[in-house]
């Protein structure tokens, strides 16, 4: 059932080193402030921090109490305050208000700000403007790579997507560059580099400059990873917008996997408590079903349950000695497996319940129709109804975007955003980022908007028109789809139990664009012959290949591929590439700014009232 790796599949490098590095650095920073101190942690950093150093480690280094950075006055009575934050202006203002309040009260404490993964000049400037630059000491915790799994590294920077693709802020590129640099110092140089997208190209060039400046370190090292592929999220929005049907993706869509772990609520655990479960390759049950199409999962789990029962049943015929053996050696493992199994069955049930309620089949059908480009009228009316029924704003926006991109902006349906004011601001953001496209640049009002204009009365309506000034990005999804054969021709039923291609992650209806590009480029070892596709992707200037002539790389390493998703990747894409790896004898390693899904993309684009 679970696909075993080909016997010749290469070993993955050991990424736990990254964790140790990060932990040691953090401890070093904490020790810089000797004595008892209270630690203020930004909410976004809590989960990643937990994966690096748990509370007892922090306590060992004299962290007294832990607080969350939020807009409330701090109650800490410690003489030393340490802030662990992302470099955001908002945080600086919070710290400034705290320090200034102390000053007013005539209190002197020691303050230390640790920026992760790096500090920005703008932050220091705000500290200066607020008049507390001299009162705090600043440090950097260069923690940019969190190994979530044996083959998945996350930078845990979900804001990358919005900051770069919407606001045009390049501040995180440097962080990416530093992360790549770290990888090449630890795991040797990358002999073959490919990439597509504006950000990918920029990051790559900056990274190369950095390597050249500091050369000597990586020179002469044997490469451990043979290829690196950098990819901008905006090259392929479609895949990220689709509903996921592979188990791991579905869990993410339903329960939200956060930093490699998920909170299963009472409805899953069938008790009155929520349970935090780490989802990775160490969970044997999960490891076998994570990449499976959901329709197979139930069958697999029940088979597994039967096996388990059989193993339990073995004890009936045992004598004392065998029983002793069984209890001491196998029972614990079985119990563990049992616990996991019941959890995943619970999760499956819960997913089934939710998905049938919302006409999941209908939804999937519409999505497939959009991807394949038939029955547009039906799909549009489905979306319309979706909106009329006010099901969920995020969901509606997602479908609208999908429609708009796949139909190249030819979305002649009446869209209305009567979900509340904030989502109207979102509308313009989507446009600017290219998630909603226009049919032809220069058309001031598309059909969509002219309809909207009649209906909208929400205060933020004006935001829609922001998009008029922004450059219209044309999507050529249909043409690309044809060129790359993204919609597999199926004769008869697509057997999801024995997948034939990467399309299985979308029930056999669609091969993820991003993964297909990677496949094609790896096959050719360059972009040769893909000129037309690159042109259609509007990336003519941003596709690159760079190979070093040295053939120091072992054949083992040449089958290891690091894929870097700038702006996030979905679990479906990960599953698809894992599948591709098994087929071709590669192993893929994923480096992403954050694991994302359609809902997260939409939320990132949303204007939320502060």
């Amino acid at each position, binding site marked *: 059932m679970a696909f075993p790796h080909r016997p010749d599949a290469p070993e993955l490098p050991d990424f736990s080193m990254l964790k140790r590095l990060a932990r040691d650095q953090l401890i070093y920073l904490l020790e810089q402030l000797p004595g008892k101190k209270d630690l203020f942690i930004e909410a976004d950093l809590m989960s990643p921090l937990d994966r690096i150093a748990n509370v007892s480690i922090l306590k060992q280094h004299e962290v007294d109490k832990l607080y969350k950075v939020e807009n409330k006055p701090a109650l800490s009575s410690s003489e030393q305050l340490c802030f662990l934050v992302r470099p955001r*202006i*908002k945080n600086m*203002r919070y710290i400034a208000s705290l320090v200034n309040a102390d000053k007013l009260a005539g209190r002197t404490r020691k303050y230390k700000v640790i920026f992760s993964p790096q500090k*920005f*000049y*703008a932050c220091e*400037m*705000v500290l200066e*403007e607020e008049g507390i630059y001299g009162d705090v000491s600043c440090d950097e915790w260069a923690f940019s790579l969190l190994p979530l799994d044996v083959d998945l590294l996350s930078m845990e920077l979900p804001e990358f997507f919005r*900051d770069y693709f919407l*606001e*045009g*802020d*390049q*501040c995180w*590129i*440097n962080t990416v*560059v530093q992360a790549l640099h770290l990888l090449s110092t630890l795991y040797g140089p990358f002999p073959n580099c490919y990439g597509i997208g504006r950000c990918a190209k*920029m990051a790559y*060039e*900056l990274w190369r*400059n950095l390597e*050249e*400046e500091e050369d000597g370190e990586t020179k002469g090292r044997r490469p451990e990873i043979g290829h690196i592929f950098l990819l901008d999220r905006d090259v392929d929005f479609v895949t990220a917008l689709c509903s996921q049907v592979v188990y791991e993706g579905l869990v993410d869509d339903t329960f939200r996997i956060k930093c490699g772990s998920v909170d299963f609520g009472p409805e899953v655990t069938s008790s009155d408590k929520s349970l935090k479960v780490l989802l990775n390759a160490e969970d044997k049950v999960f490891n076998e079903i994570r990449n499976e199409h959901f329709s197979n999962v139930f069958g697999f789990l029940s088979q597994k349950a039967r096996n388990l029962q059989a193993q339990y049943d073995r004890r009936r015929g045992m004598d004392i000695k065998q029983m002793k053996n069984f209890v001491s050696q196998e029972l614990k493992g079985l119990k563990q497996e049992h616990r996991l199994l019941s959890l995943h069955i619970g999760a499956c049930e819960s997913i089934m319940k939710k998905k049938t309620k919302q006409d999941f089949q209908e939804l999937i059908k519409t999505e497939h129709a959009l991807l394949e480009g038939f029955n547009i009228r039906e799909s549009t009316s489905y979306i*319309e*109804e979706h909106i*009329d*029924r*006010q099901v969920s704003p995020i969901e509606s926006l997602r479908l609208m975007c999908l429609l708009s991109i796949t139909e190249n902006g030819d979305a002649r349906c*009446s869209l*209305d955003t*009567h*979900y*509340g*004011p904030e989502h109207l*601001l979102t509308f*313009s953001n989507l446009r600017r980022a290219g998630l909603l496209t226009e049919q032809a640049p220069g058309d001031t*009002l598309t059909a969509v*908007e*002219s309809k909207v*204009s*009649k*209906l*909208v*009365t*929400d*205060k*933020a*309506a*004006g*935001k*829609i*028109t*922001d998009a*008029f*000034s922004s450059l219209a990005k044309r999507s050529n999804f249909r043409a690309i789809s044809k060129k790359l054969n993204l919609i597999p021709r199926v004769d008869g039923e697509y057997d999801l139990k024995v997948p034939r291609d990467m399309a299985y992650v979308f029930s056999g209806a669609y091969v993820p664009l991003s993964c297909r590009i990677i496949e094609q480029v790896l096959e050719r070892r360059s972009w040769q012959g893909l000129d037309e596709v690159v042109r259609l992707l509007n990336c003519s200037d941003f596709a690159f290949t760079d190979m070093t002539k040295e053939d120091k790389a072992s054949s083992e390493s040449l089958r290891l591929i690091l894929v870097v998703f700038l702006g996030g990747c979905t679990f479906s894409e990960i599953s698809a590439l894992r599948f591709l790896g098994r087929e071709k004898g590669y192993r893929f390693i994923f480096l992403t700014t954050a694991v994302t899904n359609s809902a997260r993309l939409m939320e990132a684009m949303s204007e939320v*009232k*502060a």
Partner: protein
Amino acid sequence: MDCYTANWNPLGDSAFYRKYELYSMDWDLKEELRDCLVAAAPYGGPIALLRNPWRKEKAASVRPVLDIYSASGIPLASLLWKSGPVVSLGWSAEEELLCVQEDGAVLVYGLHGDFRRHFSMGNEVLQNRVLDARIFHTEFGSGVAILTGAHRFTLSANVGDLKLRRMPEVPGLQSAPSCWTALCQDRVAHILLAVGPDLYLLDHAACSAVTPPGLAPGVSSFLQMAVSFTYRHLALFTDTGYIWMGTASLKEKLCEFNCNIRAPPKQMVWCSRPRSKERAVVVAWERRLMVVGDASESIQFVLDEDSYLVPELDGVRIFSRSTHEFLHEVPAASEEIFKIASMAPGALLLEAQKEYEKESQKADEYLREIQELGQLTQAVQQCIEAAGHEHQPDMQKSLLRAASFGKCFLDRFPPDSFVHMCQDLRVLNAVRDYHIGIPLTYSQYKQLTIQVLLDRLVLRRLYPLAIQICEYLRLPEVQGVSRILAHWACYKVQQKDVSDEDVARAINQKLGDTPGVSYSDIAARAYGCGRTELAIKLLEYEPRSGEQVPLLLKMKRSKLALSKAIESGDTDLVFTVLLHLKNELNRGDFFMTLRNQPMALSLYRQFCKHQELETLKDLYNQDDNHQELGSFHIRASYAAEERIEGRVAALQTAADAFYKAKNEFAAKATEDQMRLLRLQRRLEDELGGQFLDLSLHDTVTTLILGGHNKRAEQLARDFRIPDKRLWWLKLTALADLEDWEELEKFSKSKKSPIGYLPFVEICMKQHNKYEAKKYASRVGPEQKVKALLLVGDVAQAADVAIEHRNEAELSLVLSHCTGATDGATADKIQRARAQAQKK
């Protein structure tokens, strides 16, 4: 070998002193040395002469000339002295020439006569004039001590970090002291001075009288005093021709000597070697040079010419118009080997090697002799060491040859010392060359270190030699070649007669991509010389943008800096430039600059959004970007304003902006929002409850839920909500209320634009099967089966499906048939299917 020790002079029983020529000077001096102020830097450093000083009442109209020569007499610089009278000259540890003027100003010149800077020794000095001054060397650098006309001392222990110290007064001092010197003990500078028969020691706090132990009686005045190179020893010369030698702490006497010459000596300096037990001072009169130490006899030399003594770490340099000599104690190793009839292992080895060259079997005898004593290792070491102390390359070679010869008979002799000595000697011989003129001894060289020697070569602009040495010694590039090339480039940019292009090209050709070379440093130097264009050209070669930008800003090329920063992709750098620009330019220009740089603009906008909202508005205003301005006000309408009037006003401003932007749609939408806000306010007043900030949809829903159907409909009409939506909306709201009666009335009000299936669905959602059934009958034929299945009427659904002869519907119904209850229905469907297939 007899002649080799000819210039050795014994002093007492245990020590020999020798004097040999370093260079014959052809510096072609016009004046006598005695007519000049002279300063010679230690460690084979340069010599400065200031001719025609003011102390002679000559024609004041003639400007004196300051000449700087290398130790071999090659002129390095010559300049007319245009400032005030100079009292004293001296070299700092960095080989800068310090000229102390009578008014207390100290002028600092480089080796090539380039003026560096000047500083003053304080007001007190300015008022009382300088009587005498000394430049001395301490651990921290170089110090200046000054005796003023008021017989007070002022000193600074480090001219690099100028801190003036005025020393305490010496009680009862009426005239200038007969002699004085600066002493440096325990990292503190003191002054030792002699007044008549008394000696005083001045430190920061106090003046104390001191007496040297064991001083011969009858002294009425001290004529000269000398401190050793390391400040450890002190020598005093009295008016009785008596010399006292002891420690500088004046706690111990080493020896004394009576030379019976009462004339005050011209100079007295120590001549001793580190780690030697012998102490000796060299005393010079006009025509006589005397080496005295712990012995009854002294060594005497006749001086043919006016000479000047330069104390060194391990000896004394003596230069005159025609020669430059070095006088030192013969080092132990040399003494062992060359002493007449020496049987030291080194001496035997040297002899053995010579015999070997002559192909004489005596070589073997000598070798055997050494080996029998087991002293071969020692012999080799002695030869190597002695080679280091020899000045003549021939002698170095023969000693090294002997060492190498001896080495052959040793099993495990580590080669390092031999190899290093060869390398060191090669370097030393190179810098001792007449053209270079740095007569370093081996001990001095080791004390100085190769890094400092390279610095000194660079200072003398001897770049090729410096690079050759680096390459020869295989120094790491960053410390060696790159550093020197960078210095060369910095010198190159100062050549004003060469065009910018040529200089830039020449520099790039030489430096290329040499690691460790910072083009920005060179560019900074070019800018320092006022060559901005050249600096910009050089910066082009700088690969690190982080290094380019600060200098560009300094050169006021802010716009170029901005584009460089943007190229670098480093947002911090961009921000630095932005901030700089913001302060430097007026607001309008600043915004204009931003407008051409979208990346910088978006960065700045991001910052303004959080920190300076007003600036953001100005930014849009400046650009006539009414569109963004409108959006800005809309955001303000809910983020910044609290009162409803304020919010409406903000929206009005936004609407105006949208009109200006010719965006009718947005303007209309904004106006609608204003209308909605006002209306919601009125609703709140009239009906109570919370309406503000609800969307239109939610407002209508709330009204229905509150039972205000009329108002709801009015609102829907006012804002032209489409029928379909209104039906959905009402349907959901009424079902939520479970107002089945009203729902039924509503369903009958006219034909439903959304069909009746939603009615069925929504009733079932509220678990009202009874109501659901009512609507199921009204569902259109296409959706009838679905509706019937929803209400659970499988049988009827089957009938309809069969009637429709729709395969998909049939299977749908079939999938709903569960267990026994629907067995009959299932059969029925199967039959119908079979029938359909028959047909």
